[in-house]
């Protein structure tokens, strides 16, 4: 019997959608050979099965075990190139997704992997930093700081020992692109970290991975071992080694100084800056802490040149952004597009409208510290400047849509409770303020709020914004205050007089 080669994603979310059950059901079927790839990120279509045709891949969506005859017979497939959700994207960092086997180093190389590292090897450390300066890449972890500036500080700070740390804490609920990179294209992250190591002169790297991502940690450990065995980590006699370290469920450990405290094994408490980690970080040595997506963006920049990257996007936001759509939309998934589309466009073109039976109420961008937008404010362009101007953040690119069943007072309480739970306790406005904020909201929920409750919340919010040491306390008021601003009636219902 002829065996048909098919492709099925093996990433955490595809498996959660049923890819694992599908593979099990077909494991003894001789007519099909399954290649387990990364996911394209069109998660609403998973489990999605693809096969080769003379005109490229064809795909079958939301496949169940009894779809096998159709797939083997080639009946009813859709050309992947014609899936609108994918067709309208610009995939650079996520170009391999859905195509390659994540842990196959040779395949990574065949598809252009390691070209960035090769380019970096032909440059001086200063040359690498210069390429990044020209690229105008800003960090994708949340703070959007120019990458080259940080690298230059670490490069110019004299020290025997320097470190590169990938921030894989991905704490913002609603975000999953770091997880996808670690599970789906791990060598790209390793390559990015190695380029950084060469630029600053680091010999050791860590990947600090959240506890909730066991599959990602496994994929990274496996890939690092593979790279080590291929003598890839120590290239050109330039020694470098990498280690995966797991966190233990603390949101604030995504903040870089807390992360380094945690990496040293202590309580993940935020430290005052300066000194910045680039000058004095892990064990007091110059350390670059960058986000996983940031590192994964770098190989293409070195391979294609900084000017290539700078030619994409908007004035202050160059390149592409990985947006992660979740919540009550019809088509949740990963979207890589140049900066500049409006939020409305993104939700409309990619999100595909609301999940059946639900109506739009608000969308939150930038994780649990991000602002809420009502329908009337969706024309904001996705770029750092427009968001900063609106007092909002793009953060790590999480977009969560809420439907009209959402109770805004409860949502606001959820955010204050989250901050109270996750506060590292270092500063009073965040530690105490978040508890007070939660209590006020609980009183409103119980119908016991007074006319002053909302003013009190606003005052508290302003104090937290102005006086917190880090963005957890400093940004926590935003989702709460934007909820009050856009949905005041719901809060007023809980006031007695």
């Amino acid at each position: 019997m002829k065996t048909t080669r098919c492709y099925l994603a093996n990433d955490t979310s595809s498996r959660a959608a049923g890819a694992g059950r599908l593979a099990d059901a077909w494991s003894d079927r001789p007519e099909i050979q399954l290649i387990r790839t990364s996911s394209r990120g069109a998660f609403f279509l998973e489990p999605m099965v693809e096969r080769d045709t003379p005109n490229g891949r064809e795909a079958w969506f939301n496949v169940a075990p009894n779809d096998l005859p159709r797939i083997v017979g080639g009946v009813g497939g859709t050309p992947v190139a014609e899936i609108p959700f994918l067709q309208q994207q610009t995939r650079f960092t996520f170009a391999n997704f859905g195509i390659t086997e994540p842990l196959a180093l040779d395949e990574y190389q065949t598809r252009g992997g390691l070209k960035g590292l090769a380019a970096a090897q032909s440059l001086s450390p200063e040359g690498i930093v210069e390429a990044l300066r020209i690229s105008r890449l800003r960090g994708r972890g949340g703070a959007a700081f120019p990458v080259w500036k940080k690298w230059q500080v670490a490069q110019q700070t004299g020290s025997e020992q320097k470190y590169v740390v990938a921030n894989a804490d991905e704490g913002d609920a609603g975000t999953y692109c770091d997880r996808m990179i670690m599970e789906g294209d791990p060598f790209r992250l390793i390559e990015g970290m190695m380029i950084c190591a060469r630029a600053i002169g680091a010999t050791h790297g860590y990947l600090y991975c959240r506890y909730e991502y066991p599959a990602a940690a496994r994929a990274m450990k496996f890939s690092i071992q593979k790279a080590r065995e291929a003598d890839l980590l120590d290239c050109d006699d330039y020694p470098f080694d990498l280690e995966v370290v797991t966190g233990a469920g603390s949101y604030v450990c995504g903040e870089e100084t807390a992360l380094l405290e945690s990496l040293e094994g202590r309580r993940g408490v935020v430290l005052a800056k300066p000194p910045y980690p680039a000058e004095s970080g892990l064990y007091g040595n110059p350390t670059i802490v960058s986000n996983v997506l940031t590192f994964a963006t770098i190989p293409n920049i070195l391979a294609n040149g900084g000017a290539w990257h700078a030619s994409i996007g908007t004035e202050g936001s160059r390149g592409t952004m990985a947006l992660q759509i979740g919540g009550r939309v019809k088509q949740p998934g990963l979207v890589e597009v140049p900066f500049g589309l409006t939020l409305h466009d993104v939700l409309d073109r990619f999100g595909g409208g609301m999940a059946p039976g639900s109506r739009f109420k608000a969308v939150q961008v930038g994780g649990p510290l991000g602002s809420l937008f009502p329908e009337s404010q969706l024309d904001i362009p996705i770029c750092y400047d427009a968001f900063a101007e609106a007092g909002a953040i793009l953060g790590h690119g999480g977009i969560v849509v809420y439907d009209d069943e959402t109770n805004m007072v409860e949502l606001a309480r959820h955010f204050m409770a989250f901050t109270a739970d996750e506060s590292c306790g270092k500063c009073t406005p965040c530690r105490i303020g978040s508890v007070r904020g939660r209590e006020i909201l609980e009183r409103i929920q119980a119908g016991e709020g007074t006319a002053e409750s909302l003013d009190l919340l606003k005052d508290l919010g302003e104090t937290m914004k102005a006086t917190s040491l880090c963005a957890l306390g400093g940004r926590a008021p935003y989702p709460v205050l934007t909820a009050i601003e856009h949905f005041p009636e719901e809060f007023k219902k809980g006031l007695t007089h």
Partner: protein
Amino acid sequence: MTTRHRPGLAEALEYCRPVPPVKSNILKTLLAVQSALGHVPTSAIPQIAQVLGVTDAQVAGVLSYYSDLRTQSPGRHLIRVCMGESCTANHGGRVLRAIQDHVRVAVGGRTLEGRFTVEKMSCAGNCAVSPTVMIDEDLCGRVTPSEVPSLLEPYT
């Protein structure tokens, strides 16, 4: 779903004994102990502190700081229900209630016969296939309250 060999405390600590120049690492050690024993009993603090050459208070401080470190032994299976925003927007709260009703335990508690511990978790990175329930290391997506019984059945 199979019971693995779990090394004892002493065995787990042996791997974490700091050998210069490698520095002692409390968090890493506690995670290793938890993976060996399923939890970190507070009675183990002095022994851990001694192996690492740190004070009991330092170990206790780290142990209490991190929410994924547990001091109570969990049930045979750990059910974690995501309360992140995408899961909440997709009614993960209803799934949590269905699970609690089905196994009859409060959040943070262990069922009488020791089969399950139920906990809330923050985002599992499965937001596009939410709501999410994690049972041991298995991640389930698009979970509905009505499928809870069949979902839990294989975990005995």
